[in-house]
């Protein structure tokens, strides 16, 4: 039994989500291999080789693998699939994009967003925005799985010394082409990897008012998130969205500001270690999950909190 983990990276750096997926793979038992499909991505393969518990790293390097196009990466995975009992992707935008293509071509079900491994064929996954946890068993020969990163503590990034083996890259499918990327310019940590997250909701009232969170986030070294309501209202960009249909976060500290706490939002943050809620409505459902609730006008409380830290 050997598991293949598909690495998430930007051709220069291995993304942390990969280490969570390796942790899930380790729970399955058996060897763990990591595939790095990219362009000029040797540095990424070398980083993956150092991750704890990795037995071998496969590097497929070609210009048409540079941008993670689903058609090409899925073919690359399919070419290597034989011999693996499990194929794991981090449940990131990239993993979610590619994994189902691999599963469909193998004619197997995909198990999405697992949060626990009960056995080599049995997994727990949230459904209905995390309002229920389904325990599912797969009878397929190969299990294609996406791993919710917050469900598994990352393995150590250093300490391993796995060999890196170069594998032949598949041909370019020619079906799709990468045109461009607009990366949000941001000095803050990445939302899903941040130790502290400060999120704003509709209570902020405008995109302008969202800036009130900046001094607090600066003080805490936090990433800034938003509820879907705030995103829908245009107060914050969509990639800030925390919730069922946005990002799933589990930081050490989550500060919810002006967020009422719709179930779809709670689905994205209720595994945070400590939750602070600041809201003027004492009946807001967010207080039902908050460790520390402050019923106050956020426009006074947030600057005061930033100043007091």
């Amino acid at each position, binding site marked *: 039994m050997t598991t293949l983990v598909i690495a998430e990276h930007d051709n220069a750096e291995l993304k942390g989500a990969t280490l969570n997926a390796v942790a899930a793979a380790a729970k399955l038992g058996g060897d763990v291999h990591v595939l790095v499909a990219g362009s000029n991505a040797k540095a990424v393969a070398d980083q993956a080789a150092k991750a704890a518990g990795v037995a071998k790293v496969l590097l497929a390097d070609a210009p048409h693998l540079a941008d993670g196009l*689903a058609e090409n990466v899925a073919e690359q995975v399919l070419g290597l699939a034989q011999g693996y009992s499990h194929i794991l992707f981090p449940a990131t935008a990239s993993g979610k994009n590619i994994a189902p293509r691999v599963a469909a071509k193998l004619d197997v079900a995909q198990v999405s967003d697992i949060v626990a491994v009960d056995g080599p064929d049995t997994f727990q996954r949230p459904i209905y925005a995390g309002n229920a946890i389904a325990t599912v068993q797969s*009878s397929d020969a190969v299990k294609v799985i996406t791993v919710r990163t917050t469900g598994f503590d990352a393995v150590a990034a250093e300490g391993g010394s796995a060999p890196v083996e170069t594998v032949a890259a598949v041909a370019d499918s020619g079906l799709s*082409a990468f045109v461009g990327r607009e990366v949000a310019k941001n000095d803050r940590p990445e939302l899903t990897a941040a130790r502290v997250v400060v999120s704003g909701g509709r209570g902020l009232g405008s995109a302008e008012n969202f800036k009130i969170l900046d001094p607090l986030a600066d003080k805490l070294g936090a990433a800034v998130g938003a509820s879907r309501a705030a995103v829908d209202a245009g107060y914050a960009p969509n990639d800030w969205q925390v919730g069922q249909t946005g990002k799933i976060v589990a930081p050490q500290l989550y500060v919810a500001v002006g967020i009422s706490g719709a179930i779809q939002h709670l689905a994205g943050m209720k595994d945070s270690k400590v939750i602070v809620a600041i809201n003027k409505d004492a009946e807001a459902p967010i207080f039902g999950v908050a460790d520390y609730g402050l019923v106050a006008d956020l426009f006074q409380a947030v600057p005061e909190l930033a100043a007091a830290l």
Partner: protein
Amino acid sequence: MKVLVPVKRVVDYNVKVRVKSDQSGVDIANVKMSMNPFDEIAVEEATRLKEKGGAAEVVAVSCGVTQCQETLRTAMAIGADRAVLVQTDAELQPLAVAKLLKALVDKEQPELVILGKQAIDDDANQTGQMLAALLGWPQATFASKLELADGKATVTREVDGGLETLSLKLPAVVTTDLRLNEPRYVTLPNIMKAKKKPLDTFTPEDLGVDVAPRLKTLKVSDPPARSAGIKVPDVATLVDKLKNEAKVV
């Protein structure tokens, strides 16, 4: 060009589901059912393509129980021209739905399939990608902008940390994210008109598709509960608690 829009009937966005006491699933008896919100965005996008002259016909399809007809009527009230229901009472998992949709694509020969990125019941986020793979078509998931020109779709996608733009050769599969558009409210005249639009029904057997589930649900349980903490009277107390009790700052 023809656009196919798969839609799913799900528990309404505002319903908080309850786990059944025997842990066999969630209780969906007598709860409000609606079109999956992401699929509604897909129907809206296809309708706008048609209104702009980019699509000649919009066909809504759904797989599931008889009541999915209501979901299809809603799609036609938004703007779909006709509908196809693949009717079955069997449990349908994403791979089975993708196979049913592939059979319909083979029949209908659309140049574009637009559907929601995920359904808000099983939260699987698989069907569009699986359909694209089975068809050997390119895909653009999590779309926030879609433009068609010269046999190509240019799609802006919501990805971690920002946006990326892809160019796909048609035919292609596109899955919708929240900000692609804001679906219109359906009007009463359009609801009435939708009742007269054609709705064809097939079964999985008609399409020659084996829909047997591959994943067995052993149990469905409540998530670990998180208990409410305390309310603090002021910012100073909050800072004190965070520093000395929770030790997170």
